[in-house]
Structure formats: structure tokens, C-alpha cells
């Protein structure tokens, strides 16, 4: 069975200049209830990997460097 990959808007924005995942920080990945944030091995920063966000904010509030900004998912705006 062949599949089509769907395109979604990334609504959890990570500021690469501020994210210290390279130093071992995983706070946002740990707290996200829907488990949609992951380390991008390419650049050593965090990114949204599933379009399953409850726009609830633990990731943003608990990030030690305030690197995360959550936007309302596109379909709801």
C-alpha cells in the first residue's frame, strides 16, 4: 500500500538561539502531555514532530530559556 505524506503547519516554535538541548536539556520533551516534541538529531534542537498539540503550554512555561512559543493550531485560529 502506498501512502501520501500530509503537510501540517508547525505551531510549536522553537528559537534555536535559545534552545539548550545540546547541553542535555529535555524539559519540554518530558512535560508535553501528548509527547509531540523530540530532539532533532540534525541540529541538536527540539522540534514538533506530531500535529497533536493541545495548546496547553507546559512546554513553554517550563522551558528554562524561554525558547518555546506555542501558537494556536492553524485549524482553530
Amino acid at each position, binding site marked *: 500500500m502506498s*501512502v501520501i505524506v500530509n503537510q501540517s503547519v508547525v505551531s510549536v516554535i522553537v528559537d534555536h538561539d535559545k534552545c539548550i538541548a545540546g547541553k542535555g536539556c529535555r524539559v519540554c520533551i518530558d512535560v508535553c502531555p501528548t509527547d509531540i516534541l523530540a530532539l532533532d538529531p540534525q541540529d541538536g534542537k527540539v522540534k514538533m514532530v506530531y500535529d497533536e498539540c493541545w495548546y496547553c503550554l507546559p512546554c513553554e*512555561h517550563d522551558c528554562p530559556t524561554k525558547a518555546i512559543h506555542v501558537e494556536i493550531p492553524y485549524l*482553530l485560529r
Partner: protein
Amino acid sequence: METRHIDADILVIGGGTAGPIAAIKAKAKNPQLKVLLLDKANVKRAGAIAEGMDSVNNAIVPGYATPEQYVKEITIANDGIVNQAAINAYAVRSYAMIRELDEWGVKFEKDETGDYAVKKVHHLGAYVLPMPEGYDVKKVIFRQLRKHGVQVSNRLVTTRLLVGEGGRAAGAMALDSRSGEFAVIRARAVVLCTGAAGRLGLPSSGYLFGTYENPTNAGDGYSMAYHAGAELSGLECFQINPLIKDYNGPACAYVTGPFGGYTVNAKGERFIKSDYWSGQMMLEFWRELEGGNGPVFLKLDHLADETVTRIENVLHVTERPTRGRFHEGRGTDYRSDLVEMHISEIGLCGGHSASGVWVDEHARTTVPGLYAAGDLCNVAHNYMLGAMVYGQIAGEDAVDFIAGRDFAAFDAAQVERERERVFAPLLREDGLAPTQVEYKLRRMVNDYLQPPKVTRKMEIGLQRFAEIRADLGRLKANNPHELMRAMEVYAILDCAELAAAASLYRTESRWGLYHYRVEYEGRNDADWFAFVQVRKGADGRPECFKREVPPYLYPIDAAERDAYDRLRFEQPATV
């Protein structure tokens, strides 16, 4: 796929609101026990209260209300179908729980004299205690978990309970959504606190995770309890809430009401007397939306600037703090604009309506050694504080239950069967994406189960659900995360079928919009003054039956009985 074996004296599943209190109270009662609390998410930020709460919606504070008044109001608001003993078990412990949370460091609103500042939002009595600085509640509770030595395990998605000899709960099986490991957990008692079935209907935005409930709460607990043989109750009494349109979060009447905010129709008229969430209120709301008087709005633009600022300091800071961001995106300012409101997708939630796993006043389900607390159990309108109190009741009773009882022996075949079911989507070469099957299933739920309920529609719905059940054998997951989503689809489907079965069974209308059946207008107490229960029948299919309403502790006068049917203003009220 490795299998991890874990043993615990008491296993608490779900670390949101009820679960942590169950674990803390069990440990406090017997510190020698191994109490394990597990969650699909991370207990630190899991559940409905991840970002705190706007208010205690059902505080019974001496001087403002008595347990008797509260139990009566909840009885009336639920058209009489309640187990008063279960509601009373919450009511008599409500104040002590507030005091304890206060001592732990949770902040509640107080007046100048230091007393709790309770507000009236319900139709009859005063039970709302604001929490303008309630955002720390999870942190406070987490400190207590540590202090009491509760063991915590995150990212474990429980998929089935283990059933032991004599039908007793023997533990649970879970999938680690990060490592893909399978866990078999033996326990002497199990407390289920997995929250509402929040991913049943599809929000009108079409966004799967844009639900009213925390979307981690997919209905897993209902499914697990059902397959373990437990009785479920009131699944025809849906949860439907009035929410900010598209954002799909509360506005929230409990916050703005005491400040002078209220709901109006398109003409700017007030049409309901009480914004307290009940099926009757939702029916009036729905009639206004559908009857040509919509849209419906929350009105705050008449309030003083500093009052609106105080409201913003709650609504945009706790519970659903992105509310402000949403309004900003659309250029909505409470000072000058009305907030468009809408009706949520349907769900199952004891905390807001009156459905769930049947428990008595000791939080015991009908399965020995299995407890349920919080939104998952059928203690009506129990909300956050009721979840905590039922957690306490369950945790403490479980300690007594296991005294002198060892682990229940169980048939290992169920572990093999479950392993096979859980890992099949990962092992399959290709197939259907879990999110796509979920989308279709939840759209069908909207199409066929959303009230007003129509017999023929629900029957077609059941056919569609059966077809989707056949599709489950084609689910394809590419990693443990997608596997978690695949397992959730199984649970959502169980909830959809059970909700349809219970709705078809009760041939009357009750609870306003929650169970509004067009072919059976009105309440029929002669035939239906009873709970509708559902359990797994001998043929493996849902079996519905009636359970008597236990005699009331506090009788209701004929004059009070229908108070919630008189929510509509006789004359449109323009204020």
C-alpha cells in the same frame, strides 16, 4: 519488544488529579506499601489540571452551603438519577480537602477577613470558590507525591487490566510509548483514574487534539473497565459543554459570572438564568443556536475596564492560558467585543455530567479490588475537587482491601493475547494510519450520536462503527508513539459503541440536551427512573440493564424537583 515485570501493592493508573491523591492517601495510611502511580504522560504536568484551574466548582464551605444542600442541588440538576450516598461521600469531605490543599500551598480566593470567598453560579446554592492563582496546583501535589514516597512511572500507556481468579483485579498491562517495551504489572488492588473519554466526538474545527478535555484522556479507562467485567453507568448522559467557538475551551461562566458576565443571543438578550453547566442549560443553549436566535455570545463588554483586567488575569493565566492568545489572533477584546460561543463535541465524563464506571460511596467498582475515581467514575458533577476526594476514598479503601490478601493468580494467556493485540500494528507491513481511522470514527460519532438523538441514526452509527472495527485489523504504526495512538482508537471505538447502546436503550428524554431523544420527548419516570448500566455480556457484546436508584438520604420536595427545568427567562431579558 522486551517485557518488563513490575509488582506493586497498589497500582494507581492515571496521574492527573484523582490518581496522585489516591496514591498519596494510600501511602499516608500505610507507608510500608509499595504504591505505584503511572501515567501515559508525565505526572508533573499530566491531566486536566496541568496548568491549574480557574475555580473549585463544587466547594462545600461551612457558612455558605451544607452537604445536604449540595447533594440536593446535584440530585435536581441530574433529574433525580443519582446515588446520593456517593455524592454525599464527596460532600462531607469537600471542606477538609480544601483545607488540606490550602495547607499544602494551593491558593484559593479569600476575602478581607481571610475566609474563602465563595460565589453563587449554580441555579440554587453557592459553591464556586475561585482560584485566581491556581496555576501551581500540580506542582504542589507533586511535592506531596515525593514527600510520601510514591513511585512514579511516566509514558506508560495502560491498555488492559489483568483479571485474576474470582474476577478480581490482578494488575494491568501497558505499553511504553517511548521505548516500545511491554509492561506487565501485578498489583493487589488497582485504582483507575484515567479521566474522561475526551476524544469521542470530533471538535467542529476538525483538529483531532483540539478537544475540550486533555486529549491524553481518550477513554482508555472505560474500555479497560468494560473488558475487565465492570459495570458502567449513564453512558447515554453525554458531556456537552458551552465553549469558546473554535478554541474549544471554557470561557468560563464560573469565572465571569460572579463579575457580571453572562450569555446572550444574537439580539443581545439574556435567555438563561443560570450559566451553571447542566443538560437543561445546554438544551436552552442549543435551541438558541439552532432556533434562529444564534450565534450565542459571552458578554463582558459592559464591565468596567479593571474588572475585565481581573478576568483576563484568570482566563489568560490559568487552566487554558492560551485563551488570550486565541482572542489576540482574532482581534477580540472583552472590553469591546462579544465572545462567540459554541457547543462542544460529545464526550463521556462523570466530572461534568453523570456517566462512567459505576462506583459506590467507597469508590469500589463491581470488580473486586478495582476502584475508579475522577472523571472516569459516575459520581455526578464531581469536578476537580470531587476527583481528589474520590481519589482519597479509593486510595484509603484499597489499603483495607489488600490487608491479608496476596496477588490474585491470573491466567497468563491473557498476557500473550494482549501482547499480540498491542504489537500487531507495529509488525504489520503496511496499512491504515491510526490518526486517519480516528478521524473517520470521530466524525461518525458526530454524525450519528450528537444529540438530538435519533434511533435510526444511532443504528446506522453502530453499523459504521462495526465496519471501523473490522479496519482495526489493518492499523499500521511505524513507532511506539503511533502505536499508542492505534491503541487509543480501540478505546474510542469501545466508548462510541457503549454510548450508542446505552442511548438506544433508554427510550425517553432526560438531562436536557445530554439525552434528548426526539422520538421520546420528555421524561418518563414511570419506566425510566433508574440508572442504565452496561457491561460485557456472555457473548462479548455490550449488555444494557437497569439499576435502581438507591433510596435518597435527602428527599426532594415536589416543588424543588423541576427547578432546573425552569432555566429559561419567560420574557427575553435585555440588561
